[in-house]
């Protein structure tokens, strides 16, 4: 099989260009529609957060009541943005790492449209009042088979590519991506059949739902983001991964610990006592895989400070790994039974934790991947360094405010909830935090509207035709153009009709 691996750099470049071209439309479709859903989700996040401090804001309309806008916000985020950008990264990265062109891009595109249709129907269902009332599974129950079938139609090709790849070393990113590809359907089918199809005990159903939320974060979004970061870090810096055994430790500890986590949200509810406590213990122990991966990746990336200051991909990835470190510490500090768990169980800390995981960690790494992948599949460079910088700064400020306010405001809120000698009304302290959250979501929305426009222009192939990537810092002392160096025009790209 080894004869299939091109040995000279020119053939290798051609192979990579061929892979990129074969996946151009699916990848750009998932990224762009994901970014559009992200903007929608953030808009809904602003509306729902505004309703917490000003309950009469857009009140009186059934479609826009808090109890429907909030689930729509979080479901659009997860299934609209999170999954779609994950698909883009999964199909591109497995093709590159398996060194196989994609032969099913039409099918993947079709399946992607069906996925989007499912998400749209689900959201209309939530707005129209057909929500199931199960957190993160609020889509009406006819939606999940649609999502599942399109999921298989999208990722099965990546699995096949992995099977038929040239023999050789399996890189850590492939482990994480394969893990995510196997874990997600298992979790999704389990939760949906047990909750929608089989009659069970109502409290156990709530427990399975809590487990589903945690499993989705730690067994789908986390491995996808870590696999991507392990791909980007060595690729952009040109250095090997700091410690490969640490990477393996991180992977297997995640695989062993994460399936047990989640049910701590039901501490004190009438389910078998060991379930919430195992959940709390596992969530605390998740510190190990998170910190192992974070240290490993940071040691790899921070070894090249000059590349870090210039590369948008690396800067977003480092910020995402920063989010991972905060997430790892929060997993410990927010889930200690007998001390912080009773305070965070029913306060806004859970929302802060989820947003930190989904935006502060996962989305940042995904932005890094988008800034890396798009110039390769479109053969155009990013238009504007300023747009990227703005996206980065506003996102960072925004997510720090949303996550930290909710995490630690939630602790305060929990303390006053637990103070049973005070009347209940005294513990309704969400007001200042909700105002801060609304403003922060506005920042994030602003940054992501520009991200979406930038991405759309790139898909239309209106990017810069240059062989110099758009870097965040000019490589010379004196500034060139605000958009980076002009460089040579790339006339060799596939699809270009040669003048000769």
């Amino acid at each position: 099989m080894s004869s299939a691996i091109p040995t000279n750099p020119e053939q290798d470049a051609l192979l990579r260009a061929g892979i990129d071209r074969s996946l151009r439309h699916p990848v750009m479709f998932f990224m762009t529609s994901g970014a559009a859903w992200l903007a929608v989700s953030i808009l809904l996040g602003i509306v729902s957060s505004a309703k917490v401090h000003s309950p009469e804001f857009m009140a009186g309309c059934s479609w826009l009541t808090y109890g429907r806008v909030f689930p729509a916000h979080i479901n659009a985020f997860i299934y609209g943005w999170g999954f779609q950008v994950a698909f883009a990264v999964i199909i591109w990265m497995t093709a590159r790492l398996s060194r196989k062109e994609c032969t099913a891009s039409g099918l993947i595109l079709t399946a992607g449209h069906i996925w989007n249709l499912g998400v749209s129907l689900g959201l209309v269902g939530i707005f129209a009042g057909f929500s199931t009332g199960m957190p993160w599974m609020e889509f009406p129950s006819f939606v999940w088979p649609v999502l599942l079938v399109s999921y298989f139609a999208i990722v099965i090709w990546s699995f096949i590519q992995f099977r038929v790849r040239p023999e050789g070393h399996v890189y850590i990113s492939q482990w994480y991506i394969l893990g995510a590809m196997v874990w997600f359907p298992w979790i999704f089918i389990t939760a949906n059949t047990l909750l929608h199809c089989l009659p069970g005990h109502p409290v156990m159903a709530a427990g399975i739902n809590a487990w589903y939320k945690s499993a989705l974060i730690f067994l789908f979004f986390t491995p996808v983001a870590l696999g991507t970061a392990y791909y980007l870090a060595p690729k952009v810096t040109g250095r090997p991964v700091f410690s490969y055994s640490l990477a393996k430790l991180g992977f297997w500890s995640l695989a062993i610990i994460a399936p047990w986590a989640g049910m701590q949200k039901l501490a004190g509810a009438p389910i078998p006592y060991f379930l919430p406590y195992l959940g709390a213990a596992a969530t605390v122990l998740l510190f190990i895989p998170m910190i192992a991966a974070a240290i490993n990746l940071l040691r790899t990336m921070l070894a090249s400070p000059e590349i870090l200051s210039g590369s948008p991909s690396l800067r977003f990835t480092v910020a995402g790994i920063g989010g991972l470190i905060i997430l790892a510490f929060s997993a410990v500090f927010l889930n200690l039974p007998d001390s912080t768990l009773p305070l965070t169980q029913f306060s806004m800390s859970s929302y802060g934790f989820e947003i930190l995981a989904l935006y502060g960690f996962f989305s940042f790494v995904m932005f890094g991947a988008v800034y890396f992948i798009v110039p390769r599949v479109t053969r155009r460079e990013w238009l504007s360094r300023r747009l990227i910088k703005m996206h980065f700064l506003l996102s960072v400020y925004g997510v720090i405010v949303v996550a930290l306010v909710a995490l630690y405001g939630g602790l305060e809120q929990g303390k006053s909830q637990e103070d049973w000698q005070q009347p209940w009304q005294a513990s309704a302290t969400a007001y200042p935090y909700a105002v801060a959250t609304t403003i922060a979501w506005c920042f994030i929305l602003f940054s992501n509207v520009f991200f979406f426009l930038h991405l759309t222009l790139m898909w239309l192939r209106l990017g810069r035709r240059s062989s110099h990537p758009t870097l965040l810092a000019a490589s010379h002392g004196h500034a060139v153009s605000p958009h980076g160096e002009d460089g040579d025009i790339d006339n060799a790209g596939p699809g270009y009709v040669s003048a000769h």
Partner: protein
Amino acid sequence: MSLRTFILGLSASFGIAWLAIIVVPFIKMRDLAPVQLTEAADGTTGIFFPKRSGRVADGAQIYAENGCYLCHTQVVRPTYAGNDLYRADWGGLKADPDRGDTRRETNAYDFFGEKFAQIGVSRMGPDLSNLGRRVESIYAVGKDPSQWLYAHLYNPRQEPQRWKSTCPSFRFLFTERKITGNSSDDALPFGRHGNKELIPDSDAKALVSYLLSLKKDQPVPASMNFGPPKKKG
């Protein structure tokens, strides 16, 4: 490592947890045996069966569709997991006029008639495990409890002491209609303008019926009662 070993490793690490905390507890909980009452300890025989009346199934659906679970919980945690039981009116009533202190923790039989226990995700508002009891004995003393709930759902900030409430208004569950003949018994007291009145829709009726069914303070069998001996009223 071959793909087969890898998939086996994944299946083992995930599968053990999956069996231990999802599949087996699901099957066990599904066939939860009823608790027998004994003459010696409980003073009666038979099984423990907390009865609920009202439109539990429909109402729970309205509760779910409108996202009440985002801000309200339905679990009174035992004292090892939180301070809910100390509150005077959450786990029951501290001083029920007939039965004395009726406070108790939530048990697995309390969700009879519901498909999904709305344990809830946060407490922007109070716990609702005993909302029906609270409305009848505290909020709407001497009034019609469903009338009080209709008015509260229509405008949660109407009572002066509730001006800070952040509960959304559920005006969309009510309809304004012309009075023909007698006015409706359910009409909102403040919704009358000329010959028009505000009446709750079928959804609002189901929801209120469900909320009034939330009275999880029945005495539990001695075998399930972990509370200290309580003063009789």
